[in-house]
């Protein structure tokens, strides 16, 4: 099982966290077009490579954070709490 580096709790089994997938900026609901909103809702880059994604440390510190993960190799580059600078924690790499 993948070890996910929670910036607070350290590397934890992925099964102890919740996965929230690819990050997308939310358009302004008052002004956006249907196409913009539905791009936000449905369309995904889904790269076979580096991906910035959201995790929630649901059984530990209960913080949402982002990690940068390579979707093919499983390699991790960084874990970031919202609002903090990138590169906070180096993940274990294979």
């Amino acid at each position, binding site marked *: 099982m*993948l070890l996910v580096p929670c910036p607070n709790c350290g590397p934890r089994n992925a099964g102890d966290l919740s996965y929230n*997938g690819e990050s997308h900026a939310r358009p302004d609901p008052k002004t956006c077009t249907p196409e913009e909103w539905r791009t936000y809702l449905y*369309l995904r880059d889904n*790269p*076979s490579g580096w991906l910035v994604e959201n995790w929630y440390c649901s059984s530990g510190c209960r913080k949402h954070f982002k990690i940068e993960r390579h979707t093919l190799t499983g390699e991790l580059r960084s874990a970031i709490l919202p609002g903090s600078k990138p590169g906070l924690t180096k993940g274990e790499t294979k």
Partner: protein
Amino acid sequence: MRKKCSSISGQCHPSRRAFKQGQPEVCFELSDLLAQGGLRDVEAGSRPSKVELVSNGDEGIEPAKCGQVTHALILSIRTDLVLLPYRSLRHTDSMGKNKPPAKYSAAGLLWKGLRRQSWPRVWREPEFKSSYDVVIIGGGVHGLATAYYLAANHGITDVAVVDRAYLGSGGSGRNTAIVRSNYLTPEGVAFYDRSLDLYNSMSNDLNLNVMFSERGHLTLAHTDSALRTMHWRAEVNKLQGINSSVIDPAEIKKLAPSLDVSTDTRYPIMGALYHPPGGTIRHDAVVWGYARGADAHGIDLFQQTEVLDILTEGDHGSGKVTGVRTSKGDISTPIVVNCTAGWASTISSMVDVQLPITTHPLQAAVTEPVKTFLPTVVVSGSLHVYVSQTDRGELVFGASVDPVATYNMSGTLEFTEELAGHVLELMPGISKMRLLRQWAGLCDMTPDYSPVMGPTPVDGFYVDVGWGTYGFKAGPVSGEQMAACVANGETPDLIKPFELSRFTEGNLVGEKGAAAVGH
């Protein structure tokens, strides 16, 4: 291309077409045998004395005298002797430019065995050309079926199928080979039912036994809300003429005696959606059947050929396809069909088409073989498990997709743990069976549990992607419809609901309704 085809797709039986096109048709009847009281009554050792078969070389077998009833020989795997009366053999010389494939039959098997001959290649190793009318990316069931039907139904044969590995190396060879049509929405039901029809006649259509086993399909309900969804599906199914109904635990026990239907379990079995036409099929055989069929029509199949880029002219995301760059060289083509799973987003991103897809592994596992005891396919949505037993005696398990998006197919321990726990909830008596092998395939999940099919904003770039966990079931009909879509230049009604544009238009397909209701 936009060629119009005179035949209405799906109306013309492939074997009839084959006959018209001057290819040999071989069939043999076993009704005599049945009239004798079935296989069990055939006496061991009652071998006929006379065999009349003549080979025409590498092209398969040809009887000496067309139409003459010739008897018969033994085909046995052990002590049961099976008589195969061999009759009504007809042969017309092949005049077409495509060399027909070797005809597979029991008699052929006997002939080859007697002569100690080997079979010819199942498909050619074609020369790489620099130009094709259509290039299909992905040598799985979808890509190969699309190629086959382009040729068989529309006469379009200048087609290349390219695959980065070997044919059937992706989801086609990694799924758990379950077929069914008891979906929730009318559009889903109509679509998969056509697929089931094609599967039913496939062994004959493709002259390759795909071992379709119509063994019935049970979807268990463990909660009242799940039971409600089963009723919903059954009602929609029945209106579409699909054999599908909700049955109670006593009936379930009769169909699958290994299931624990007692009420004091953590996940009591409260009922099930029973779908008798559902079953299993030999997935590799489907791949090989379409590959062989496509090859016979002159379509070129390239394995170990990776697509590096798709060449276009005009603006990004809205231009026009001009060709494909592969690891074996460039191909110029006006039409590219993306029939991949696990690489759908990557391929589409080459022409800047963004898809509503995230890619997740779906894991499967198989046990050591034991004598058969599970006659039906059993699915439990709440417990995320489906199981069937192959004719070889192995239990084949699948689960729901892993929650974390990844292209890594290495598989997890947790999958096997959860699987075993849940299977033993359902069938407590099999704790001593052992897991032999686990593997994973990639599933392209869409927000509405339905595929993305048809044209895209890029002229000439078609997609047949987003197949989630149900791609194998849909292989034949997808190929048939995508072929029609490409050949006729307009999206057939059967796949109209699955166009990419539905996402920006907000017209999602209702399969999500069932998936999101209850647990």
